């Protein structure tokens, strides 16, 4: 099988490429990159005319929830990965809060096998830090690494016990994987929205920004002390950004990510009591949003993740305080992130970097690069195509999005995973 992508603008931050190059894919790998590639028609190649479009490495999401095993009514590996490739993701790191929790190799093996059978993209599991996400005993991290995990995290249930956190950070050094930390001090985070003017107006219990910042500080301090790789996920506050900026100067094993909703939405939206705006950590203030954008620009924030958290509507269509947290994010994340480009905050190369090679480096995988001989995980997108988000057209089981009805600019059109065309936008005609 051959695929030829012609006339596209190839942007690959890993190789510092940005020029009009044809890309030839043979089998699972990229075989040639050249100004003009002609192939014989008896090869029966798929030819993609990418004129006016951008070709880049497939996006890598280091934070999503595929819900399988245990919550197949929210999402499955099949529907989740289909949603991922529609959104331009070719590798996704799925969090461990499944049922059973991914805290041992049998669950990891199950996910890996299921993904191989049914997945549309690469599924790279994340193991839990502690057994059952209980924060008490370390999971069998080493065995899980052998089975295929690329990181550990107790996402959603931050490790409260600092001694356990220390042990985990020490232990992972043997396996060269990062610890992805969801930072929220649990006792200060009993609310459901950001503590601020809008929590006051809505009478909803707030989580103060310091709940996040205290734990960001704690986790980085511990990681620095034991010299281990810490990644702070979904950074949402100005204070966290400031702490990470300062810590990065002292310590080179700290990285972080944020998600589109933390630079697209503010806590003002909670006044609608629409639980689609409920996320963990909560949406913050305008000032925080500005700080997040600035940090993306400066490079303090290395990665943009989705925190794709699909839910059945029954758990969202309820009173705000008892609704589930999260956004079904795969199908909007890239387009939302492209607004950073349209608003002049990031150029395309920087943006793509935060969604390809930077996440690849964090979890130490050979993807996120578009060069000869590399695995052919890539996407073709139109940075300017305008479209309207319609949750009913989501292929994810999770229709929970606060972006329904939003008009966005920029859309993924083609997704290729391991040399296979796994997604094509219905409106896109391969060869014009």
């Amino acid at each position, binding site marked *: 099988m051959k695929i030829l992508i012609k006339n596209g603008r190839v942007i690959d931050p890993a190789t510092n490429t940005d020029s009009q190059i044809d890309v030839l894919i043979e089998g699972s790998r990229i075989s040639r990159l050249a100004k003009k590639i002609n192939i014989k028609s008896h090869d029966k190649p798929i030819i993609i005319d990418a004129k006016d479009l951008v070709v880049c490495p497939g996006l890598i999401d280091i934070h999503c929830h595929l819900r399988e095993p245990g919550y197949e009514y929210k999402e499955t590996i099949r529907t989740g990965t289909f949603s991922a490739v529609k959104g331009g993701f070719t590798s996704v790191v799925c969090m461990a809060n499944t049922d059973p929790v991914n805290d041992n190799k049998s669950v990891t093996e199950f996910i890996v096998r299921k993904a191989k059978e049914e997945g549309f993209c690469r599924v790279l599991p994340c193991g839990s830090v502690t057994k059952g996400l209980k924060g008490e005993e370390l999971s069998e991290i080493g065995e899980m690494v052998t089975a295929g995990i690329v990181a550990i995290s107790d996402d959603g249930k931050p490790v409260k016990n600092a001694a356990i956190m220390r042990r985990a950070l020490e232990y992972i050094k043997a396996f060269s994987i990062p610890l992805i930390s969801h930072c929220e001090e649990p006792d200060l985070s009993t609310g459901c929205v950001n503590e601020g003017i809008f929590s006051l107006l809505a009478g909803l219990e707030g989580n103060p920004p310091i709940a996040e910042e205290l734990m960001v500080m704690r986790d980085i301090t511990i990681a620095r002390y034991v010299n281990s790789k810490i990644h702070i996920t979904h950074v949402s506050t100005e204070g966290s950004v400031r702490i990470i900026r300062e810590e990065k100067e002292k310590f080179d094993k700290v990285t972080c990510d944020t998600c589109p909703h933390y630079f697209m939405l503010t806590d003002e939206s909670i006044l609608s009591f629409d639980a689609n705006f409920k996320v963990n950590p909560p949406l913050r203030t305008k000032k925080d949003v500005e700080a997040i954008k600035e940090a993306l620009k400066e490079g303090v924030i290395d990665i943009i993740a989705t925190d794709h958290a699909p839910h059945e509507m029954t758990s969202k269509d*309820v009173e*705000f305080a008892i609704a589930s947290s999260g956004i079904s994010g795969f199908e909007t994340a890239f387009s939302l992130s492209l607004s950073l480009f349209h608003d002049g905050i990031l150029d395309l190369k920087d943006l793509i970097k935060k969604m390809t090679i930077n996440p690849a480096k964090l979890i130490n995988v050979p993807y996120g690069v578009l060069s000869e001989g590399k695995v052919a995980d890539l996407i073709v997108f139109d940075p300017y195509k305008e479209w309207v988000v319609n949750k009913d057209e989501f292929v994810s089981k999770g229709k929970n999005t606060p972006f329904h009805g939003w008009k966005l600019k920029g859309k993924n059109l083609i997704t290729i995973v391991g040399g296979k065309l796994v997604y094509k936008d219905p409106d896109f005609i391969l060869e014009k």
Partner: protein
Amino acid sequence: MDWRRKDLLEIRELSREEILLVLDTAESFKEVSKRDIKKVPTLRGKTIITLFFEPSTRTRTSFEIAAKRLSADTINISATTSSVVKGETLKDTALNLESMQPDVIVIRHSLAGAPHILSKILNSSVINAGDGSHEHPTQALLDLFTIREKKGKIENLKVVIVGDIAHSRVARSNIFCLKKFGNEVVCCGPPSMIPPYLDTLGVRVEYKLESALKDADVIMALRIQKERGGVSFIPSLKEYATFYGLKKEHISLAKDDVIIMHPGPMNRGVEITDEVADGPYSVILDQVENGVAVRMAILYLLLGREQ
């Protein structure tokens, strides 16, 4: 001024004109309660459901009497007797009730925003009778009605709200309401019960009761919300009573014609002493009486709204 709203969800979204219309309409309805035959046929054939997910005697009775005096039929549903305990969602409960064609659903719920969920999916009018720590709009309206009745005005007054501001929907609704009319609002309570950013509402915060009460026209004592975890914010009810309980000697700090209000039910000896609650400055029972007139007005306005 016409009433156009389908629902009464919060005071914050109401204009001054809308609030005054409720007050004026309530004046007209107050007379009905003073008659021998306390009933007018205005809402004959209308059905009003009170859907209470939290125990309440006063508010529910007040709504029920208001509806009955207007000749509407009322049905009361409590969380304990409804299918909510069987795990039905609020949305399903509401849709099931709406299938029976009520005209108004009055809802009280322990979680903020529950009435807003109903208002989005129902054709019936929705009245918020208190949602979590968010709002209690009819309480603020009846409080303002009582202030107007006793003070002859609702502007340029110094109103001191004492107690657990953070968890009080009554405080929120009253702050929004009183600030719309340019009153000086002082909130006083233990700092752990004063929510952050309260000053952004144009409210002054005082931690010392004695200095807060100086020259007050109106004092509102709030109920300590034991059921909303209010107690964990203070060392003990006894200590609260020592520092923030409204006592007889406090009255002299306020203006001579001060009025004392309380949304009820009172924890006597905690936020208010018997002497104050039953004393000459207390208008607590007037508040209850006016509650019926104000709720009659609201039912009338919502059902008579311009479509």
